[in-house]
């Protein structure tokens, strides 16, 4: 190397010092790895969202199942319940024996006769989620092991109300409760101090647990029973019980075939001062002829306003019991189709006490609920409701022998005669899990753990437990995007209602209304923003002096820097004004373009000497026209309101007053304007131009202005004519197109979101237009084209793809905008195009609900899905825009 000839003739030292080389390599390595690492990290955003969403579609799993065979057997008709920690459980035999046991070993802790001196003849637990009861902080009965006199620090109980009927015709109400206490360390016996975190032990009639957080927790089952109330005059055979939201109702049927209903009302107890249910009245049930044979099942729904009598052969009688003074047979139907020889083998209410679940001897399970039929649907029963079969599950392996309801979701566990259990999700009509308890032995009782993470069953030979992960049965692509038949609805529908007031509320996760809301917001935003921004960009780049342009552009870009929360607040501020001035604001849409055009025609009339000199202040004149247009709208608005909308637009929109004529006129105006303008441009203008060749410039300008006025009049006339025609046909825009006015509506969102979208579209469009090479313009102008002709025929076609990309970027922003739609969109998840109504978009919904959503719950994951959907929507739109823009850039480069 060194002996090559050099330019200067002197040999040069060509080696780089090792330090420079090393630094160079390290820098290269760091930048390369750092750069790529950063980019990869950013791209993980989408992957992470997908990773969170994915479990929505996992299928449920049984993680661990085992059979315990303790020395106790279960009789048919026993009832089983387990606490939320899956630590302690109880089973209640039909003879009134309560057995408390430890769930993980099946070991019996306590065995007590609830009524030692009298044996119950009927037992009816109240359906639905258990009650949460605060336990008075006195020394509890569960403290006997320590003999301490100290009250535990906190105590809470999850109670199941149960009614017992007796042979003497009396009824007792009781609460069987899981009670938890946090005892003081000093009260904990020596033996328990060896517990490790997470371990548990039996302590007397309780279970003591050391939680992973280092706290001692004591679990007990307590029974709190009230005195007998005489209801019937004979031995009670069937019993139905509901809490009725604080006003319990008990129904009892006797062996002799009479039925009575006992209503309780909340009264203030004179002794303790607390409000508790007191017997209000006992009413005889006027039994129909069909009830001569005593029913096999007697059930009351959650509010106690319907009493169901079910027979094994599938007959069902429903009595309306809402009003104690007027109880009557409402409807009578068969649960099985004609010719179906199945027998009813199990019945119960789903969480919420509204949906009746019945199982039959062929292993089928079906869900029935009361709904109010819509007009044109099936006829309602005499009380206005109708019982319908909404969901049905295909036959299982054998007859259904037991039903267990989830306390959190719309899930049912069904036990079968061949010893299998299956877990069903009712609303989604899915069979989630099937497992075997003990082959060949009928399942006596099944229960789902309160947190839905366990499944328990009693078989004659023992106690079975399984740990399950039901995943997210209520979410699947079809339930998210297609109509679902929710409890109490007349028909399947797409609904988003993720949270409700009560514990037994069923969340409704239909994403379609949210996607619709996003599209609606985008539509109205683009309707307002896109033409404004594009025209403004055209004007800035083509018709304004470059010095003016340099001032205007930053002014509009200031708008882009406005935080969207400020715009959302603006929407809140202007909403009352918009409501008060709605006619004037709607007239602005007509008066502003009309006034501008009129001013342009007046401008044409002014002699050219003057206009040429004034042309550089044209924008100022245009700005001056705006207040005139506003004034015109202000005058015109009330006028239009009086003549077309019976004096009050808002009332008109409600559909209360006026004829549909006014609405049609307003809706048809743009269309008729375009049509008339087209006709005028095609035929009238050439004629006028031909005529005008002889009358000189000013004369022609006058003629042209006249033509414009005529066009306007023709537009109105044709709009009126069309509106009259449509009205004559009896069509009304109120309903499908416009409707009730709400203060926070799409109109306002469209306007305010314009602030967010206009500057973006404007900037990119203006960049695209001014990137068109000037030699094209020069050539066009040189060939005799006017600036407008140059703009329309040369500049816009060349910049078309750039303009398109501007629109797409604007669209992307409108889709993802959050704060404005959150604050101004009204957040009502409805699907209509009415511009005066609100909507609930994906973005606003996520912002509103995610902070409250429980980590890894179905709701949480569905909100992540909403986020992912938004990501995908904007990413696609932006990518298209970017590709088009790059293509345009290359093309312009070649010009």
């Amino acid at each position, binding site marked *: 190397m060194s002996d090559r000839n050099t330019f200067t003739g002197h040999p040069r030292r060509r080696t780089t010092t090792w330090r420079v080389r090393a630094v160079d390599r390290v820098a290269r390595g760091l930048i390369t790895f750092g750069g790529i690492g950063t980019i990869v990290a950013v791209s993980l955003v989408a992957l992470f969202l997908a990773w969170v969403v994915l479990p929505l579609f996992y299928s449920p799993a049984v993680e661990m199942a085992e059979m315990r065979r303790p020395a106790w057997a279960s009789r048919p008709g026993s009832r089983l319940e387990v606490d939320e920690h899956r630590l302690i459980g109880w089973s209640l035999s039909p003879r009134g024996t309560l057995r408390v046991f430890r769930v993980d070993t099946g070991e019996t802790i306590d065995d007590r006769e609830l009524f030692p001196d009298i044996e119950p003849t009927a037992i009816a637990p109240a359906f639905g989620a258990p009650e949460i009861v605060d336990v008075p902080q006195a020394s509890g009965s569960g403290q006997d092991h320590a003999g301490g006199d100290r009250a535990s620090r906190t105590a809470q109980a999850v109670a199941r109300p149960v009614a017992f009927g007796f042979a003497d015709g009396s009824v007792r109400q009781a609460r069987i409760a899981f009670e938890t206490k946090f005892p003081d360390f000093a009260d904990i016996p020596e033996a328990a101090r060896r517990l490790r975190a997470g371990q548990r032990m039996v302590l007397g009639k309780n279970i003591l647990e050391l939680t992973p957080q280092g706290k001692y927790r004591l679990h007990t089952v307590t029974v709190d029973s009230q005195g007998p109330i005489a209801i019937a005059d004979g031995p009670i055979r069937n019993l139905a019980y509901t809490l009725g939201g604080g006003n319990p109702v008990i129904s009892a049927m006797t062996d002799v075939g009479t039925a009575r209903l006992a209503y309780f009302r909340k009264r203030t107890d004179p002794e303790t001062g607390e409000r508790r249910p007191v017997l209000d009245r006992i009413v005889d049930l006027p039994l129909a002829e069909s009830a001569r044979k005593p029913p096999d099942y007697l059930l009351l729904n959650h509010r106690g306003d319907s009493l169901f009598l079910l027979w094994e052969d599938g007959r069902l009688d429903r009595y309306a019991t809402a009003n104690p003074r007027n109880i009557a047979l409402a409807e009578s139907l068969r649960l099985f189709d004609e010719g179906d020889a199945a027998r009813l083998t199990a019945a119960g209410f789903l969480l919420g006490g509204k949906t009746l679940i019945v199982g039959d001897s062929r292993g089928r399970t079906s869900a029935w609920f009361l709904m109010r039929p819509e007009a044109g649907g099936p006829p309602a029963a005499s009380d206005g409701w109708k019982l319908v079969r909404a969901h049905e599950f295909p036959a299982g392996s054998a007859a259904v022998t037991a039903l267990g309801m989830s306390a959190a979701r719309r899930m049912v566990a069904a036990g079968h005669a061949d010893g299998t259990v299956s877990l069903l999700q009712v609303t989604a009509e899915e069979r989630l899990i099937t497992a075997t308890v003990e082959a060949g032995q009928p399942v006596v009782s099944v229960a789902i753990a309160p947190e839905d993470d366990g499944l328990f069953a009693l078989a004659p030979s023992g106690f079975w437990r399984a740990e399950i992960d039901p995943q997210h049965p209520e979410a699947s692509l079809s339930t998210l995007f297609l109509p679902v038949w929710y409890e109490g609805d007349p028909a399947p529908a797409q609904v988003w209602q993720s949270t409700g007031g009560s514990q037994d509320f069923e969340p409704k996760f239909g994403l379609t209304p949210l996607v619709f809301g996003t599209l609606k917001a985008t539509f109205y935003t683009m309707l307002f923003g896109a033409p404004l921004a594009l025209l403004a960009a055209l004007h800035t780049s083509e018709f304004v002096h470059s010095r003016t342009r340099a001032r205007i552009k930053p002014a509009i870009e200031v708008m882009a820097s406005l935080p969207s*929360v400020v715009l959302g607040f603006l929407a809140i501020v202007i909403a009352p004004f918009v409501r008060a001035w709605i006619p004037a604001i709607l007239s602005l849409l007509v008066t502003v373009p009309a006034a501008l055009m009129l001013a342009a025609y007046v401008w044409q009339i002014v002699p050219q000497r003057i206009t040429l000199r004034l042309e550089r202040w044209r924008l100022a004149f245009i700005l001056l026209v705006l207040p005139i247009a506003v004034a015109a709208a202000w005058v015109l608005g009330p006028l239009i309101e009086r003549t077309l909308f019976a004096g009050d637009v808002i009332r008109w929109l409600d559909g209360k007053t006026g004829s549909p004529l006014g609405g049609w006129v307003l809706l048809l105006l743009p269309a008729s304007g375009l049509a008339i303008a087209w006709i005028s441009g095609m035929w009238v203008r050439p004629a006028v131009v031909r005529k005008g060749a002889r009358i000189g410039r000013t004369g022609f300008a006058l003629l042209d202005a006249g033509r414009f006025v005529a066009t306007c009049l023709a537009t109105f006339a044709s709009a009126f004519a069309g509106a009259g025609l449509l009205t004559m046909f009896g069509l009304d825009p109120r309903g499908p197109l416009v409707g009730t006015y709400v203060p926070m509506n799409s109109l306002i969102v469209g306007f305010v979101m314009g602030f967010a979208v206009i500057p973006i579209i404007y900037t990119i469009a203006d960049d695209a237009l001014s990137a068109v090479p000037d030699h094209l313009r020069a050539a066009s102008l040189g060939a005799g084209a006017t600036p407008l002709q140059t703009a329309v025929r040369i500049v816009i076609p060349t910049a078309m793809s750039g303009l398109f990309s501007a629109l797409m970027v604007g669209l992307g922003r409108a889709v993802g905008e959050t704060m404005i739609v959150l604050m101004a969109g009204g957040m009502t998840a409805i699907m209509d195009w009415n511009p005066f109504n609100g909507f609930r978009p994906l973005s606003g919904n996520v912002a509103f609900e995610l902070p409250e959503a429980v980590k890894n719950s179905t709701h949480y994951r569905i909100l992540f899905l909403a986020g992912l959907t938004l990501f995908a929507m904007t990413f696609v739109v932006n990518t298209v825009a970017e590709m088009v823009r790059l293509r345009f850039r290359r093309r312009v480069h070649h010009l």
Partner: protein
Amino acid sequence: MSAIADTARLKTAPARGWGRRAGRRGGGGSALVARGEPLVWLSGGALAVSLAMVAGLLALIVYRGFATFWPDRIVRLELRDGRAVMGEVSADEVHEPSPGVETRRRQVRTGNFELTNTHFQWVLDEEVAPGGVTLPEWALLVERVEWGRFYGVPQAFAVRSARPVSGEEEQLAETLRFFEEGMAKLDEADRAALTPFVDQELRPQLRAVQIRAYERLLANFGTTPEGARLDAVLASGRIVPITEVPPGEAIVEIHEVRTGAEAAWDRFAELHDGVREKAAERRRLEKHDIGALNRRLETARLAVRSAEIEIEQPLLAPAESALRLRREIATLQDRRAADRRVAESVRQRFGGESTAARAAARFAAEREAGAAGQIEKHRVELQRVQAVLDEASPGGPPVVQVFWDTAAAVAVQTAEIQEQIQAIRAETARYELRLATADGRLKALSLADVVRAFPANRLGWWDRLGVYFSRWAEFLTGEPREANSEGGILPAIWGTVVMTLIMSLAVVPFGVLAALYLREYAKPGPIVSAVRISVNNLAGVPSIVFGVFGLGFFCYIIGAYVDGGPDNAGIVPWPEREWFVTLGALAAIGAGAFLLGLLSLAKAGRGHSGWQRHRGRVSIVLWLVATVLFVALIAKTPFFDGFYAANLPNPTFGKGGLLWASLTLSLLTLPVVIVATEEAVSAVPNSMREGSYACGASKWQTIRRIVLPRALPGILTGMILAMARGAGEVAPLMLVGAVKLAPELPIDGEFPFFHGSRNFMHLGFHIYDLGFQSPNSEAARPMVFTTTLLLIFIVASLNLAAIWLRGRLRRRFGSAQF
């Protein structure tokens, strides 16, 4: 610049000539139509509307924002039905109760919420009695710490002086209490014996002592201060002038009252500042000192819990139990001592042989016996608990001892501070301003609760300016009050600033690194342009999506991991041995790939054999895979139990907080920085790079000495734009830690000074919360405008700085970018 100017000339000049020629030819019609003036005007109209929208919005915010703090006149409206309304008129508009009927109505901010249950009232014009609109001269506007504003006319100013209590009186009162408690337990005969003593000796003695004290008090207030009246509050609750106190009546308090609006106002103005200072001191004690003590105790408690987790034996529960037992023993002993004291004082006062002394001794003994039994029981329990602790570590674990000591110290100090607070409270509660509302009701306001008061209708222009600026000062430097609708927004400003700064610290290095790679090192090709497009697109991804990511990833995974290790974050850890082996292997592979990359990348671009050319690419891929797997493996470590496991299940980092909010926003603004930096880097002319290479500089030297300095303004522009975007963003913050009211600042004087896990307040979120969710939106609205003004000011000045920098950059390098 010049190119654009040329275009403009080109644009206008031919048009003019063309028009003239057309006019001369007389064919004005077609020329006029061709010019298409209406369309030009229409497009101009669109521009004008856009400009009007910006101008209108800014004007609205600036006007309403600046007008918020201007003190209005207080108007009194007499209504026809005899009622009267007084306050500031906040709106005045034409109202249409039914179609066609128009009337004027005024919205009056009437304040006095605790009396009227409303802050505002609408008054129709026809409701007002003729001549019923007045500006009462002395109407006072009072801004209060609680309950919002108060409007009233000052009637009087009172200073209360409570009667001092002597030691003797206290002792007698205690004795009386002791006997009254004890007598309930006595049998009939004993009670009969003791009752005469209590009624005929103890009570009269107490009363005599009290009357001596009143007399001393009266003597002190012998003369009436000038212009004031002295009132005495009697034990019966009656208030009489001090000169009319019946002899022998018990006086509880003496009020020095100045009546008349002017006198009351003067006295108020004189005393208010001092009382406010004391009240501020009290708030500091309540909030800061007590808060610090509570945190100290919590820290000690958490230390015990940590030790408990470590040794896997119960510590905290026994430690707390022992603490409670000791406290109960101490309380019982205190009570015993008090009983002894009373018995002793009775013996001294009434003689050892009196019925009273014997009864007292008996009572004391009875109570002592009960207490002793209790104490003994507690002692036994304490020993048992102590034994558990001793078992955990002989002599009791030191953390537990520290916990006990801290608890004892904190209890003592808390009591001291509480005493101070009580003293200040008693002192400040002595002063009260009595005001009459519009409807004549009297209301006494304690001076400590008054933030600011002024007679609005007496103020001149200059004074009103003073009020205006003092309100601004409070707004910018104070803490929020009244559900944020009053007071200041310093925490929000502070939160916004700190969050934005941390965000830019995180975003700039990575953004610049990525941009340098894309522009200087990556070989242009389809992959790089795809990456570039994706990065550009990320700028268009809705901010809420980043919020969702931040919540799910930073808070619920990383944060939960930091708090309690893999288990807490929902990650299943690996078995130990496999973990070690895999970790070592991955580390080796990663390091090897990195070194290989260093070696081969430096030679890129020169002709090599196929393998050597691909070596660089392979090593990068290998490194990436190894790094990702390495991170995943670290996440699955079986050894890490989290730094804040003691606090679980309460999350420390596993929830929204300042750090996560900053990181989320830095992810959001990363594309902005990358794009701006790329633009700036590519604007550096290639000739300069080539010149540098020609001089023999290496690539890194070229970048460091030539490219980066030239691109610096562009990078700064990107950073400022990112800060502007970050400061104005709200939607993601709603998910990752911005809150309505943060009790503590994210940076303060307490170790470790920066608290990344704390929630924070943010100006944008403040606007959202106050404007959209405030319970009293009417009264909050002016504040929202002011906050909006501030936010826009911050964001706009950041943006203007960026625009200015970009302009300078363009001028310097003369390259227009599209």
